């Protein structure tokens, strides 16, 4: 019989127990990082208000309504990760209903034949990432208690991986763009899909090495010697912190820190810790947090202090954090940037 644990207990326990719970290999981590430092109270409260906002505004079907990209499996995947990262028990905790709704939302929208999660490859990537993070932590039996015919998280994730790999095979760049059948690629959409694939691989789902290698090769082509990362096509290097962060992150998670492009990209990031994002600040900070955390813990700690300060000012009284694509997506991405402080999500492991 399971017990419902208090949230604070879960924070303490999950950090130590997560490696045991998850059915996959976990890279060894330094003890100090494993236990982490005490989470400041104001940060905990900020996260709590944000996650409550998302829980409150989640629809019955598991998604969020609103403008822009506020609908679809991508946001459902990100929202799902916010609940998972909260430290509450995903199966019996205060957000377990929200977790199940989000998972159901992603799986029920999936094309049973192609595995495409829907809407665009952005959504597919983030939806796949959400499933990967939930896989092993969320009990399938609670997802579809009355419908035995529905896919479980593992099945849906495998299918989604297959869709991503199929799409990549059709793409001459070896990467992804908005449509699964696109023949060109960009480093933004590709980041969403590749991180999803890497998370799935970390979760134990079979992902062909070739797929990862081709995608990493695409990123190396798109990374300048100075560390800038172009968007699409050929050239066009600018100061986009979001794309540099994506590249740094995928090199890290793919365990390719040996690449000169990784070092260049990371150097670019750490040299610009105070630089404001040029547009899409929530999207930028979502990746910047993970890239710095993976690449340079000392730099992340400095940057993280700034992030907390900025989000504290940005958070509204209802707990939401504004974003260019609406409050739900802005809140989800900002909270996931903060969630590095908890380090509970598998994708955050170093």
């Amino acid at each position: 019989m399971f017990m419902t644990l208090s949230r604070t207990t879960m924070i303490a326990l999950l950090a130590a127990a997560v490696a045991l719970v998850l059915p996959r290999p976990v890279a060894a981590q330094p003890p100090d990082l494993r236990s982490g430092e005490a989470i400041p109270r104001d940060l905990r409260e900020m996260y709590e208000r944000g996650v409550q906002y998302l829980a409150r505004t989640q629809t019955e079907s598991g998604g969020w309504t609103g403008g822009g990209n506020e609908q679809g499996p991508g946001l459902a995947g990100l929202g799902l990760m916010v609940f998972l990262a909260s430290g509450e028990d995903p199966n019996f905790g205060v957000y377990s209903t929200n977790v199940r709704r989000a998972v159901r939302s992603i799986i029920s929208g999936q094309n049973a034949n192609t595995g495409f999660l829907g809407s665009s490859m952005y959504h597919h990537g983030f939806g796949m990432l959400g499933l990967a993070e939930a896989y092993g932590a969320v009990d399938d039996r609670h997802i579809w208690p009355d419908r035995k015919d529905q896919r479980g998280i593992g099945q849906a994730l495998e299918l989604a991986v297959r869709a991503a790999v199929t799409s990549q095979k059709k793409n001459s760049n070896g990467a992804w763009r908005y449509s699964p059948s696109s023949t060109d690629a960009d480093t933004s959409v590709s980041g969403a899909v590749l991180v999803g694939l890497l998370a799935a691989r970390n979760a134990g789902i079979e992902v062909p090495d070739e797929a990862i290698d081709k995608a990493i090769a695409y990123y190396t082509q798109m990374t300048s010697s100075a560390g800038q990362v172009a968007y699409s096509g050929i050239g066009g290097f600018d100061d986009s912190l979001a794309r540099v962060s994506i590249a740094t992150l995928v090199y890290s998670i793919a365990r390719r820190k040996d690449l000169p492009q990784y070092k260049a990209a990371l150097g670019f990031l750490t040299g610009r810790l105070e630089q404001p994002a040029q547009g899409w600040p929530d999207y930028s900070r979502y990746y910047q947090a993970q890239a710095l955390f993976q690449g340079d813990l000392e730099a992340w700690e400095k940057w993280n202090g700034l992030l907390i300060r900025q989000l504290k000012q940005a958070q509204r009284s209802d707990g939401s954090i504004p974003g260019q694509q609406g409050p739900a997506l802005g809140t989800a991405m900002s909270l996931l940037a903060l969630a590095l402080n908890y380090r509970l999500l598998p994708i955050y492991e170093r």
Partner: protein
Amino acid sequence: MSWPRLTGVCPSVRCRRFAAVWPVALVAALCVGNSRGAGPPEATDVSTLQLRNGDIVSGRWLPSEDASVLRWQGAPFVSPFEFALTGVAAVSFPVPKEPPQPEGAYCFELTNGDVCYGSLERLDSETIELELPRLGRVQVPPGRLRRFSRWNESAGLIYLGPNGLADWSAAPQGAWRDEGGRLVTVQPGATLLSEFKLPPRAAIELEISWTQKPEFILALGVGNDDESVRQAFRMETWDGELVLLRETARDADLAELRTLAAGADRLRLQIYLDQIAARCLVVSESGAALADLTIAGDGKGSYPLLKLLNRGTGLQLERLRIRNWNGQAPLEADDDATGLHLVDGTIVRSPLSGYDAATREFIVGAEGARMRLAADRVDSVLLSAADVGPPEPVTATYQDAARFSGELVRVDDNAVWLSSPAFGNGLRLPRQGMRSVSVRANEKIAPAQEKGVAVLEIEGVKLRGRLIDGSAQPGASCLVWQPQGSRTAGALRPGATGRILFREPKRAPRASADTRTKTIRVEQQEQVRARQVAAMAAAARVAQAQTPVASAEEIRPRRGDQKSIYLRSGDSVPGEVTRIDERGVTIKTAFSDATLVPHEKVKAAELADESPKSAMLTKIKRDRLLTLPRMQRENPPTHLIRSKEGDYLRGRILQMDDVRLILELRLERREIARDRIARIIWLHPEELGADSAAAQSAEPDTATRVQAVHGDGVRLTFIADRLVGNVLSGKSDVLGDCQVPLDKVEQLIVGGAIEQAASRLAYQQWKLQHAVDPAFVRSEDNRSGDGRESGTESEWVGKTAPEFELPMLEGGPFRLATQRGRIVVLDFFTTWCGPCLEELPHVDQVRRDFAQAGVQVVAVNMEEAAPRVASLLERRKLQLPVALDRDGAVAAKYSVTTIPQLFVIDREGKIARHYINAGRHLGEDLAEALRELTADKTGNEPGSP
């Protein structure tokens, strides 16, 4: 050391003790009584009362049966004042922007200075009857009418005003204000230059008033250059003397006109300027000739402007009437003989014995030698005047320049009642259309010379007087003002903003020039005497140039003084900073038990004396220090730390105790020994780029917020709720309860003026400014410069648009081939593409704007299901026609690999524009392109569709 006693310890005990000493009932009764006043004046009904001592108060004139008292409801007060009429200088009423012109056939001038316009109905040895607008038929005793002249419904009138600042160039900006139509300045050096033009021969009637000492120059017939002003006929005040003078390169002449009274007074004159004959005559309001100068100018002809320069404190241009003049000198008023000026220039020196209204003829000549003159042959008539005695005490002036004088009888809501011998005593003057009522100074009554008088200065009010005991009541503050000369006091309304000045800060003595002059007649050839006149004028100008100029208030830390904490409200509180952390600044001060001040309220803190050799900070260095690079915009420094040696460090203070200061410097943590720090200045992010006063503009006050400013620089802001025995009590949101003895206070700043005053203080000037953006950033932000895409750079432009056919969302097909002769806009989008969603409303707007101009807009959705697209349109309230490119085949034809992309296809089917991710400026770029393309066919200029 003696600090003002701003007691804050155990305040509640002190408050109770004061309450026991002073009868609460009396204070309450006063304030409650005040709140039962006549209510706030209507916004459209605000007039200005000008007192004899120079004070003013805006508000409303209340009815009174007692003619010795003027009841006045000041706008910011809850109850009316009752001023002795002898202390009143004038009441000015609002004047419309286009004041009415005088109406009537004649302008009548009475012996007492009254002027009115109307028609002559009867004139004989018994009586004179006039028909006047507003007053109807009135009778004037013979001997009371001095002169009348053809007015002819304003014919020949050039200017009648002032009507606010219209028709004037005022400098510097803001120095002059429109106060009920008259023009008012308190700024030395303020000028008014006419925009209307003087005729070469002009008759000028002028009324000027002043609040303290008459100091002005009026230059007549000038251009836009200084030289013409120097050479013009000028009326100048020289240490209380009014003179008329002219200085040219060769000649100079001067005539003393009269001695002007110090204190509030006014001047009325008639000036006749003949620039053709280089002559200027000045005539008093009673018609006496004061000066007649003829000095040739620079030979460049006449100059069309008029310039007024204020050299003193308060100056008002009350009235100015300019008419064409025929160059003939006015009949001398001291000539007993009556006479008639005919329109042909003839002067008839015969007594006027009657007027035949039926035939419109004047009857002139003595009995037995009478003759008749048709009225239209007569330009003006000077009549024999009776001895009129002393001037009347009260004069009412109308917007059309008519004026009537007499003794005040009473005032009601609609009329001012005068007793006027000139009009057979009872004169009811309607308040409608009135522009001012002035009261002549009674020299027998010396102005009150009270000691310890304070001055209340708030918008529309300057009143000498004193604060009396009071306590805050609903709708009334505890600041109850007893003006000089009023037998009643009034509490200020909450929300009033201004100050009470208890004593002026000491200033350097002002240089005085010996400008005492005598009337000097300078013959044209006597160059030596001309130089003397010029020297006198120069001496007067030098005296003006040495007038001290007010500068921003400075608070500079003095070595050895006790250190202070400076708040953003302007407060300066002596005390010691013991700790800084994320909660705020902990201080130790003798003035309060409160110790923690939140960061958002702090501006600066002094910790220690600087080294005698500390580095000086130049303006360039300071500007550099306060410039925020673009890359730090989201993480601006919050503090400036100045070392004892004068070095500065920018960063974010995390913590400070009595040993060390921990600072975040570019996200790095640093430690500094506290004993190396002299000062800390707070840089508040919300002040970035804001101007000083606006940054802290407060909400309108509902309570009475005051800042007590002491002579030694100590300032304290609090909500005042009670004044008892000259001790003002209240509560500071920083220091808690406090009590301030007013005898230690230099000034009490009230309401929003606190922020304005604070913005002038030295530390408040320390504000970060954004660095100037590089050109590429500006062009991106402003869509100006070379970074702007015109939509014609693409290789697609000029090529034939690929043909296609797609099903429409609302049903039916769309075939491009059928659109020849129309301009087609294709916008490729998906529902999940953020930039596409940003552009769609602009595209929809363009569709609406150009629907009638032969433009077909189609949004092409790529590879999505129809319900999803329909849902988006409904959610976003878009009415765009959408073609469904279900397999992406059409997008492939147009090589759409990036979205959003938008193509404009001209009437011939060629691509004319191609935009890729054009962003928020797409709408204006697209509209401009379509205006150009739609204009091509018609040959019309591009314009709105």
